[in-house]
């Protein structure tokens, strides 16, 4: 009798468990681990019976496998993509992710941001045109490429935070003459130079024009006179030794460690470095948005990696509900505490002086509608081309003209 009762209880438990239990499987790029750990705990608590299984991949592994993971017969419900034709475009062309417009209306995501600012997540339904159409992704976080600087060094050089590009150039020249390394750059990895290029390009080319080219590289002229000026400027900066003589032998992580240890007056990188730089340098590090040549600011950057819902997900509504939690006003302050830059205005005070300056820089960029995204989004082959050509330009193995020709050729491929 006792055994029978245990047996029945067991059956009932399994039965009820089966009814209530829902699992949401998430695949994220490793940079989101802290964010998701908090969000998952909160979501599981407010949704009893829901289990979140998150797995993470480092950037290179993520980029190499994300399309295959979503093409699998048993894909994650919710996964990161990457803006551009290489990942997002391919996912949409193959019907692997679903449009989020219905959920966006239901949860009011579109009202959170200015008109047009979700363009980087918008695609035609056949995935052939980018920059308008249905909403295929969303993110609660922005990542901007800005200028970090060593406060002590700037002060001891008798400089102040530059308010236009000429002043920025002057600061580089003064630093160089004083024997300081003007800009720390981990060019061995290639991609960090894309961020530098994005800032210099943005200083000379209208951000609006940069974005149009990225959305439609084939149909937009790359070799404009203003972009030529930017390329020449970068060449000049490299020739003047503003990146030092060893940058091509230094990796990105090493460059940041060197900056923390006092090498380099400026560090042109993304807001994802905020927490790490703050931890290493405390009040000695500041940040500002790159001032443009003709006034105003410009910066590389965009929303963080887009979240997509798999078209094979058995429970897209639950996935959307979790996204809604990430996008909710309640979660903004949690993002702040992890040291990320939320896409919506936070209600709590910044956790550090640096974060305050970073958020202010980011707000200036948003206010000026001055984000230039990332050059490599433009075509599937661009990541390779732009990293190689920028290494050549920085290392003096190619001229600004060579660079422009190679880039223009890749644009129309």
């Amino acid at each position, binding site marked *: 009798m006792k055994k029978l009762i245990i047996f029945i209880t067991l059956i009932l438990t399994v039965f009820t468990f089966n009814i209530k239990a829902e699992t949401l499987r998430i695949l994220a790029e490793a940079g989101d681990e802290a964010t998701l750990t908090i969000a998952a705990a909160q979501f599981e608590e407010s949704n009893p019976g829901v289990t979140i299984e998150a797995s993470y991949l480092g950037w290179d592994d993520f980029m190499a496998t994300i*399309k295959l993971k979503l093409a699998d017969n048993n894909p994650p419900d919710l996964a990161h993509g990457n803006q551009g034709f290489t990942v997002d475009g*391919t996912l949409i062309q193959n019907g692997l992710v679903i449009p989020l417009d219905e959920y966006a209306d239901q949860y009011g995501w579109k009202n959170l941001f200015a008109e047009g600012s979700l363009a980087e997540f918008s695609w035609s339904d056949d995935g052939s045109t980018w920059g308008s159409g249905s909403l295929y992704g969303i993110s609660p976080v922005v990542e901007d490429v800005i200028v970090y600087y060593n406060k002590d060094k700037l002060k001891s050089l008798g400089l102040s935070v530059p308010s236009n590009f000429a002043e920025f150039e002057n600061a580089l020249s003064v630093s160089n003459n004083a024997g300081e390394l003007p800009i720390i750059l981990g060019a061995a990895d290639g991609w960090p130079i894309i961020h530098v290029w994005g800032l210099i390009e943005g200083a000379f080319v209208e951000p609006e024009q940069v974005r149009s080219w990225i959305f439609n590289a084939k149909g937009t002229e790359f070799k404009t006179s203003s972009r030529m000026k930017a390329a020449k400027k970068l060449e000049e900066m490299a020739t003047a030794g503003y990146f030092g003589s060893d940058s091509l*032998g230094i990796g990105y992580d090493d460059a940041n460690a060197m900056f923390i240890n006092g090498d380099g007056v400026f560090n042109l990188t993304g807001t994802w470095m905020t927490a790490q730089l703050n931890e290493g340098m405390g009040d000695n590090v500041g940040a500002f948005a790159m001032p443009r040549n003709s006034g105003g600011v410009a910066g590389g950057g965009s929303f963080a990696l887009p979240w997509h819902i798999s078209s094979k997900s058995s429970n897209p509504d639950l996935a959307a509900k979790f996204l809604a939690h990430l996008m909710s006003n309640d979660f903004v302050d949690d993002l702040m505490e992890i040291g990320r830059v939320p896409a919506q205005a936070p209600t709590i005070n910044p956790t550090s002086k640096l974060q305050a300056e970073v958020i202010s820089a980011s707000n200036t960029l948003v206010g000026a509608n001055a984000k230039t995204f990332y050059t490599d989004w433009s075509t599937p082959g661009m990541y*390779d081309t732009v990293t190689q050509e920028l290494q050549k330009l920085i290392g003096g193995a190619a001229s600004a003209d060579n660079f422009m020709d190679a880039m223009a050729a890749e644009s129309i491929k």
Partner: protein
Amino acid sequence: MGSMNKFINNRPHKKIDYSNYYFILPAFLFYIIFVLYPLADTFYTSFTQWSGIGEKKWVGLENYYNNLNDVKIISSIKHSFILIIFYSFFPIIIGLAIAGIMVRVKVKGIAFYRAILFLPQILSMIVVGIAWRWIYAPKGPLNTGLDFLGLDNWSRAWLGSFDFALPFVGLIGTWVMFGFAMILFIAGVQKIPTELYDAAKVDGAGPFAEFFNVTLPALKGEIIVALVFTVTLALRNFDLIYITTGGGPGTSTMIPSMFIYKKAFQMNQVGSASSLGIMLTLLIFTLISLILITLREKK
């Protein structure tokens, strides 16, 4: 052929006993699933345009044509041939030199030195790559050493230099491979009859004459093995370049296998990547055949 006929004639009516083949079946199945099938699939894919997911579109020889007309790919093949010097020729020369010396000179604790010199061969290429990236770093041991010797203007970011990156990655390959060649040759030397050396000495041969007339000819078989192995590695090498330079700066250390990876995983061109893979396989096959045909024992 004669012995074969005799074998068959002695058993004229016996059927071949197929049951023996069952024993190799498990291994053969693995071979089919993990080698032959992927190879055939890659071969087919090489004639298509494919993003990695979705439909493959037949494009005939277009991928091959484009590869042969891509200056970056052609230059990456040239880099591979330069790497053969570092991965194959240098290790074999060093290995032979060490083997030659060991024939004449008795070294105490030889097993210890042999183990130390062989060590790079058993380390993972990833570990090797990370260690050497540190050695070659702008403020790494190599440059610190040069500075210490007063050669400050020689020091540079070796792996970030358009002129030095390729040979310096090559030198890592030399370091990894020479232990392998050395062990192979030392083993070979030990099977040479000592009478030959005695005879050479009687004839008044010095160390060099002895090496070229006795040691070198006797090691021909080992040299072929070392060549086949190291040339193959030089051509299909991926991990060392991926870890140390990623093909950079610019394209100065780019090799075909890096292109295969980039095309397949970064550029959505799996068809093109497959065609390059097939071309690389054919290139390795041709080179190895040439080595074997030129150097094999003539009876």
